[in-house]
């Protein structure tokens, strides 16, 4: 009888001690990046999400989450009002003072960094999984994504590598083109193309002369940029674009921004899709995954 009572007390104490439970697993998570949100869903942990940012658009149910705003201008108190146990973010999250304030209030902020490479992608997935205490599932997911990616890369091989130009709108002013060290550049190379503008880093405004000199074979742009420009008619108005081989042959590839640039779980599919579009003479890939 005393033994039973003792056991019951111990059990009650263990259950009642919030510290113990919390130290194990973060039950309320705010994700501040579309790709991180995708990874959480891919790990099957979406029930733990209590907030997401404006770029968390996939899967569609993520849009129903409480909105914490644009990742570069977060609100400390706003995020804290969701009573999170963990905030997942990339280096893009800011302003830095707000991140500090969230940490000072006792909520850990896990900044997930990664390289723009297949290895880096795996690293990203594993980081998130570890933060969620799902290391095993993370390993499995990372391997699966790597397998998809490798399969896609195999198909590409040493085929003719077309010159691809990626650009997108960033509000007013000229469209920005992607140079080296960008997500777009990495995806282009993974999908069997080469970046038409490889002599600068980052995103820079599109220069008419550089555009003509680059003579890209394919134009790549995200869906929202095409809409913002006003469809194909709008594209024609971009100076210098109509003189490119890509325009003459009407080789314009449009893809969803998060899918293409997110560097998340669907990267394998994205690379496969992009590869198909860049090199149509490649045999159809049987990945069994829908776009």
């Amino acid at each position, binding site marked *: 009888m005393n033994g039973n009572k003792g056991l019951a007390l111990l059990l009650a104490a263990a259950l009642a001690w919030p510290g113990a439970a919390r130290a194990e697993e973060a039950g309320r998570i705010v994700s501040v990046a579309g790709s991180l949100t995708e990874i959480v869903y891919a790990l099957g942990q979406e029930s733990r999400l209590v*907030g997401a940012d404006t770029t968390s658009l996939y899967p569609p149910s993520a849009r129903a989450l*409480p*909105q*914490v*705003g*644009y990742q*570069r*201008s*977060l*609100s*400390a*108190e*706003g*995020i*804290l*009002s*969701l009573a999170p146990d963990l905030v997942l973010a990339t280096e*893009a999250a*800011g*302003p*830095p*003072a*707000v991140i*500090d*304030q969230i940490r*000072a*209030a*006792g*909520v850990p902020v896990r900044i997930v960094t990664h390289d723009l490479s297949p290895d880096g992608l795996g690293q990203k997935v594993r980081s998130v999984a570890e933060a969620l205490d799902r290391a095993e599932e993370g390993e499995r997911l990372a391997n699966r994504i790597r397998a998809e990616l490798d399969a896609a890369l195999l198909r590409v091989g040493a085929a003719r590598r077309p010159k691809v130009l990626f650009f*997108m709108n*960033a*509000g*007013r*002013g*000229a469209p*920005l083109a992607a140079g080296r060290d960008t997500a777009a550049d990495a995806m282009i190379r993974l999908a069997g193309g080469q970046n038409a503008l490889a002599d600068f880093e*980052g*995103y*820079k*405004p599109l220069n008419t002369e550089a555009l003509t000199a680059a003579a890209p074979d394919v134009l790549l742009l995200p869906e929202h940029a095409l809409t913002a420009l006003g469809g194909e008619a709008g594209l024609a108005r971009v100076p210098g674009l109509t003189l490119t081989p890509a325009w003459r042959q009407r080789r314009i590839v449009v893809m969803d921004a998060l899918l293409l640039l997110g560097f998340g779980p669907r990267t394998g599919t994205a690379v496969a899709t992009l590869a198909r579009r860049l090199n149509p003479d490649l045999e159809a890939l049987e990945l069994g995954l829908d776009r």
Partner: protein
Amino acid sequence: MTDNAPDGQVAGWPEPPARRSFPLRWPRALGAVGRGRWVLICLALVLLALAVLALGIGAVAIAPGQTLAILGAQFGVDLPWAFTAQQQAVLLTIRAPRILLGALVGAGLAAAGAALQGLFRNPLADPGLIGVSSGAALAAVAVIVLGLPPLAASGGLGLYALPLAAFGGGMFATLLVGWLAHHHGRAQVATLLLAGIAINALAGAGTGLLTYLADDEQLRTLTFWSLGSLGGATWREVAAIAPPILLALALIARYARTLNALLLGDREAGHLGFAVERAKRVLIMAGALAVGSAVAVAGIIGFVGLVVPHLLRLAQGPDHRFLLPGSALLGAVLLVCADLLARTVVVPTELPIGIVTALLGGPFFFWLLWRQRCQQGGW
């Protein structure tokens, strides 16, 4: 057709009602000084109450009792309400500096606006008019886009690179305006305004050019900064701008009577014994100090410098001895209010405060113009 209208007024226009100057009915015996003092006391009380209220309201739920307990704990007073460490952190490191910053920024912008309106004898004068805001913005944009190495490299100072640059830019723009508008030791009002327009145009072009050169990441930072925000306010920022803004307020207040006399005109104020040129220089500098500091920490927040002095003039007349401190108080009240709205209306995100002040100030501005149209007497 000109009938014999009394005292030279042109027939056909409605006769202006021979009424008191101010729509608010004050007891006659109160007089200008009494009225002014009364408004100041009211505003100070409102500000205090609002600050306490704003401290207790926010996205994170903190009950009034808990608020008091947290504050009490700071002073070693033990109160019966329990609170968590997170609530304490939110109250003391997130809300409190933010409210204080809002009050300082609001006070600085409004007082600078009042001083400039008196200086330019133009009710439309606004700190943005003389180029301070755009100069500050240009400097900040330059730091963001060009990433000036010396400032960025200096470790701890790196955080202050942006505010310092904005402040410096604002002062430089103002000095340029002052130099352009100076002639034989005189600064004519019209020339000041035109110089301000020129500087604004130049700074705008510079900012546009830098925006054009900015990459995606920088661009998004720029857009949100240019809409103004008190988010991320810390005690460091409060400590950084409290001295310059308080100094600016003190300088501006010193020239209250000179501003009163300036209502009659530069020369007439000089004939009444006021050192007009020195007053102009000091007031412009003080205005630049206040606005530059405000822009540096909170981005561009419009309408405060325009709307607040006007509201006060409606309530108690243009006597600067009360208008200047009153503007500071009312500006603080307005901004703390606007910030309260900005951070509670779309929780868990927040609105840029410049949008809130524009939504409040824009219609007021239209109302002002409409009212002027209906009355005789112009700008």
